């Protein structure tokens, strides 16, 4: 697709956000953004790990083992948030038929699945010393597992439909149906009072943890955010190249020519 040079849009002084919705304009922008997000990932990650391993005190009840919270909680947040973002992009693609939104949803799915897996994995490592079991059939664990299945189903459905347009739309419907699960995960510790501990951080009340631990966790969460965005954009660029391989602008790219 050629770049749109609509004068009424390009005269505007503000950044024209709609222009970015075209794969050909977004591709170079994403290329410039990726190093920035990687740098932020490293910076937040180093600061967060420093605080969480060396500065944060030992927990009175859980001892050293509690430190896995600095990976577990950000991964769980991201697993839910990425699903919402993925469903939102898929929904946008379904409604406005924009190609980039569908590509974005496709790019986010593996990142989200990875975060969900990481959340379950670190949860198992944490559960073993605290509960004495790698896995219990607790409401939150089960609903997080369903989330992983939903990600895998989304990816499997998209991979098995050859027609891209249909794959995007069918995936979007599945993603939107699965959104029901996200609030269930989030509120599961409140609705079913089970083994998994309640939320340590919430928007409405003071966090139930020491200030310095909170800082470590927030820095790690920022690190995970930046990582997800960086990897998501890298995947997005690969998907753009794959799907737009037939266009002129892709053939003109220096990295494609060589």
């Amino acid at each position, binding site marked *: 697709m050629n770049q749109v040079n609509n004068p009424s849009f390009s005269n505007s002084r503000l950044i024209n956000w709609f222009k970015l919705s075209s794969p050909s304009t977004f591709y170079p922008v994403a290329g410039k953004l990726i190093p920035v997000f990687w740098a932020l990932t490293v910076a937040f990650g180093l600061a967060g790990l420093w605080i969480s391993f060396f500065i944060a005190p030992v927990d009175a009840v859980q001892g050293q083992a509690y430190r896995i919270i600095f990976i577990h909680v950000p991964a769980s947040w991201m697993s839910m948030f990425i699903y919402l973002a993925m469903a939102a992009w898929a929904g946008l693609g379904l409604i406005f038929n924009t190609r980039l939104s569908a590509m974005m949803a496709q790019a986010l799915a593996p990142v989200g699945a990875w975060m969900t897996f990481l959340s379950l994995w670190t949860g198992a490592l944490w559960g073993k010393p605290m509960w004495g079991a790698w896995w219990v059939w607790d409401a939150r664990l*089960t609903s997080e597992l*369903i989330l992983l*299945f*939903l990600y*895998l*189903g989304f990816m*499997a*459905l998209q991979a*098995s*439909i050859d027609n891209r347009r*249909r794959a995007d*739309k*069918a995936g979007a*419907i*599945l993603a*939107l*149906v*699965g959104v029901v699960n996200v609030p269930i995960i989030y509120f599961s510790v409140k609705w079913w009072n089970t083994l998994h501990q309640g939320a340590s951080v919430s928007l409405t009340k003071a966090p139930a943890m020491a200030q310095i631990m909170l800082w470590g966790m927030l820095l790690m969460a920022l690190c995970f955010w930046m990582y997800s965005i960086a990897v998501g954009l890298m995947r997005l660029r690969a998907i753009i190249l794959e799907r737009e391989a037939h266009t002129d602008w892709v053939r003109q790219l220096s990295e494609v020519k060589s």
Partner: protein
Amino acid sequence: MRALLAIIQRDLLLVMRRKSEVLTALFFFVVVTSLFPLGIGADAALLRKIAPGVIWVAALLSTLLGLHRMFAADYQDGALEQLVLSPQPMVLLVTGKIIAHWIVCGLPLVLLAPLIGIQFDLDTGSLSVLMATLLLGTPVLSLLGSIGAALTLGVRGGSVLMSLLILPLYIPVLIFGAGAVYATSVGLDTSGYFSLLGALLILALAFVPWVSVAAVKIAIE
């Protein structure tokens, strides 16, 4: 309304012309549930304990077996396209197909369940709760399944993919359905489970037909 009845009648007629497919799914339900006592051993106390879960899981799987018939044959011979083009609201037609699927694949399970329950040495109270939960739960299975059936129309490896997509969505029904039967057998209150199953049914009835219509239209365009 007449369109709804007509499509139910049509689907049932088609099933009657080829009974073997339906009977296979039912036979599957009976065989799978009978395999468990053979594999685990005839310890009556253990069987009573696992009965709700086993019967519910078998019901889930045998519902899945019949799902691909919901749209696939009509998709192949072009009848589904005609249904989309017809002046009747598509939601009604899809709802009719879902109801027909439930009558063929869900209702027999409800009626068969007490027989299987007796094999597992369930008492009368548990049997009636089992039937009631299946009566509330199997329509939800048919409804949710229609989404998967429509999304995987004409896709290679469609039926395996469909189970991957649909089984995670079935988990809540399984938990509350089997949970109610288990609660009865240990003498706990079951009203909460029934409320949740009822809520699932109402929500599914309210939203799923529209989602399935969207999925069918995507498959056809």
